[in-house]
């Protein structure tokens, strides 16, 4: 008896080859960041630049972390600030956006359309245009140089609310009504039904909110006058743009770039599956 083999057409070969090549090309920046962080000083300034590291060294990370000794604010302080700010902002944005999304998607109240229109309208503003009003509000509230000053501007995320309104309105109303009859309070319906059912959308929001906050320098530049309250993104930026250490700081910047990048990667890998669910969900329904 002949065993039937699956035929591989030349087209399939071409397809797989080209996609593999594309995937390899897309992964180049990641490989570069990983290598760059471990290059010694001489390799960093090599011309033409090399892609892969020749003599890996931990010196860059070391000097970044030990920069504390001769700078006023230690690097770890920036790192700590970034973790606090990103973590709290993420939690608060998820909480505020899901609650707003639930109410806007599933409840009737006066001026609901107006509220939705305002949220849509706020999507149209470029962040630069609201920089000055934001500064005035932050200083008016007297929350310069506090974590709240980092968190508050990012808290109202129209994109997140917009996405969640769309997502939550797809949850059948009967499911929530059944929970209501079963004895769930509004808080119960929110925590037991709405939150778990909108996990895919929350995952998506988490990724872009985290990326936005983790890489944000605006709040540190505008609202934080005290160096101790600024975040890692700001510090890395200053390493590259500050005049006195733009050359000397290159090694630290390379290491810092890795530190900036790794959490994003982790968050993305964690939530990737959920994000795909979102797309499937909205595609089918």
């Amino acid at each position, binding site marked *: 008896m002949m065993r039937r083999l699956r035929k591989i057409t030349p087209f399939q070969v071409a397809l797989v080859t080209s996609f593999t090549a594309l995937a390899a090309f897309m992964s180049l920046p990641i490989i570069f960041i990983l290598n760059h962080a471990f290059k010694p000083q001489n390799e960093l300034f090599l011309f033409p630049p090399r892609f892969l590291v020749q003599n890996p060294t931990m010196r860059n990370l070391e000097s970044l972390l030990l920069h504390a000794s001769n700078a006023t604010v230690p690097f770890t302080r920036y790192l700590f600030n970034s973790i606090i700010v990103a973590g709290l902002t993420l939690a608060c944005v998820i909480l505020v956006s899901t609650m707003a999304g639930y109410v806007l998607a599933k409840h009737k109240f006066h001026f609901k359309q107006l509220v939705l229109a305002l949220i849509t309208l706020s999507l149209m503003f470029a962040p630069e245009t609201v920089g000055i009003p934001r500064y005035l509000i932050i200083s008016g509230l007297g929350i310069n140089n506090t974590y709240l000053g980092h968190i508050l501007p990012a808290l109202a995320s129209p994109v997140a609310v917009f996405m969640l309104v769309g997502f939550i309105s797809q949850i*059948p109303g*009967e*499911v929530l*009504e*059944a*929970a*209501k*009859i*079963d*004895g*769930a*309070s509004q808080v*119960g319906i929110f925590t*037991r*039904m709405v939150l*778990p*059912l909108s996990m895919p959308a929350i995952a998506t929001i988490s990724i872009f909110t985290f990326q936005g906050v983790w890489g944000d320098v605006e709040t540190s530049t505008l609202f934080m006058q005290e160096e101790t309250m600024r975040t890692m993104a700001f510090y890395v930026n200053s390493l590259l743009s500050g005049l006195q250490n733009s050359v000397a700081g290159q090694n630290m910047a390379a290491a810092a770039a890795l530190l900036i990048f790794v959490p994003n990667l982790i968050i993305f890998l964690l939530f990737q599956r959920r994000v795909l669910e979102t797309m499937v969900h909205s595609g089918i329904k």
Partner: protein
Amino acid sequence: MGSITFNHVYKRYKGEARPAVNDFHLSIEEGEFLVLVGPSGCGKSTTLRMLAGLEEISEGDLYIDDKYVNYLSPKDRDIAMVFQNYALYPNLSVYENIALGLKLRKTAKHDIELRVNRVARILEISHLLGRKPNQLSGGQKQRVALGRAIAREPQVFLMDEPLSNLDAKLRAQTRAEIIKLQSELKRTTVYVTHDQVEAMTMGTRIVVMKDGIIQQVAPPRELYDQPANLFVAGFIGSPQMNFIQGSVTREDGRFYFVNKRIKLPVPEHHYPGFNRDRNGISFIMGVRPEHALLKADTGREEEEGWVRCEVEMTEITGADSYVYVRLGEQTVIVRTDPDKLHRKDDKLLVSFAMNKVHFFEEQSGDSVSLKGDAQ
């Protein structure tokens, strides 16, 4: 326990001139299986949702067990509801779906387990308890939804077209199960459907609604035998009741129903309805297909009560056959023995069991005989 009283209840939506539910006034006794039936948009679901507390009552009072519940939230009404699209919690397992209501009511853990398992046994879903709703078939989902309602042992069951999403065979099977379950649990049940067969087979009492207004409230048999108006007469029964237009004349103290083709004596029990001055008013005679008779046309002079007609088409359902005959401009459906074959354009004689026919005023649609009884 479990009686319900609607006291002139209205539901009005903003920007709509006609109330969605118009003067719903009804008492439901404890343990009753009440069916709300009517075409879509007749307000039956809205009525049920007001009873559940999911929809506000615009006007009127609602009592459950003599307790005023207009402003009581759904969870405090001691009711359970089964939805058309099951409305299972997609993120919870079957067990958790059934248990949630008990959990939220702070039932002891071992008690929850006991009750969930008992309900699962009754509904034969014990083997599904670990699954998620998306791993179930439609019939299984509906059983879980029923289980969720039963487990809490509420005073009142509300069902909003629970069988509409099931296929025909499963629907008949689940229908029988619900009837059995209700008679065992003896809980007040309010059931909404647009399917008159479901209404007739399930309800101990049926409410027929149209345009938000109750048309008639009666047990199934009475609804079938004594429809209050044209709408109820046409809605209940399949195939539909035949309607023949005509007028009523009086000759020598006897009433006759006449039109161009026919002249039929009105039975005496309908006389009170015609005794008032009703000359020149158009009437409609209603005859169910099983109350009409066909026989071969012998070609002789028409006997009294027999009318000439021609066959239009025949529908054979197996147990019966329905012959569509043309009587002037009107078509009349007659139920016959399926063994007798009638061909298109066959000339036949048709007669009606006059003691079973109904008369309605054409203008108002109201039944003449019922009005006569009342006077």
